[in-house]
């Protein structure tokens, strides 16, 4: 959908958030509305 709108450099992250966390990189926490 992004590519259809003219964005050429669109890439999914291999392994997603889980791979980022498993690699030991920093994360932030969303503030969830209660």
């Amino acid at each position, binding site marked *: *959908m*992004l590519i259809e*709108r*003219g*964005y*050429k*450099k*669109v*890439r*999914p*992250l*291999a*392994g*997603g*958030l*889980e*791979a*980022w*966390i498993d*690699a030991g*990189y*920093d*994360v*932030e*926490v*969303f*503030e*969830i509305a209660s």
Partner: protein
Amino acid sequence: MSKLVAWVAQYGVVIVFANVFVEQVGIPVPALPTLIVAGSLVRAGSLSFLALLGAAVAASLIVDTAWYFLGRRYGHRILRTLCKVSLSPDSCVRQTESIFEKWGMASVVAARFITGFSTVAPPLAGAMGARLPVFLFYDSLGTTLWAGTGLILGFVFHRTIADVLGFLEGLGTGAVYLLGAALALFVLFKWWQRRRFYKTLRMARIGVEELRALFEKGEKPVVFDVRGPGERQHDPRRIPGAMTMEMTELDARLPGIAPEVEIVLYCT
């Protein structure tokens, strides 16, 4: 009565139970054709409608309850594992979750009629914290409607099904080879389709090390967290600076982003 029909009439309840069980486990052997054939034999008086319906519901409940508890125990992890057998693992998790959020437990009923979703719905219900009695009620209702529909279809179109069975009977052992070859071709096609999809995906993906390197070099890719609201609530962690993105708000969010900017999307 032909040998094939006699065999189905003798073991119909067991066949229906086994087929529904195997399909709910996630193996692509559709049970609906079996239910339709069994329904045609109800019309002939060879099988009991209630026994067949009971077999289908029992098989489904056994497997679905196991999936429900796995969903409760392992949360979205089990969902991701299940979605790995789908064509699009990332969108599978997000889409099934959004269906559940939109329709609630009614989606467990509808799931029975949607290929692929029927196996994913029970662990999803567990992961989303649905209560067991409520889940069992909706799951039984969905299976009863689905299996009942198949049996009634067979009951109504019994003459056509008898003709098909007669044709297969005429083929002798060739019928077994024909059905086996059709099933093998179907599984092979799905496997090839998935393999091609993964190949394309691997070529286009960015690794976590590469993304980290982009951050360290001072390049600022736009990172979107495209998980559903339910999953973000379940695990509120995100990659630093990542923004949420719902497909419905795509056009409202994009004008602020230049087309030459690198965009990275992630799900679970």
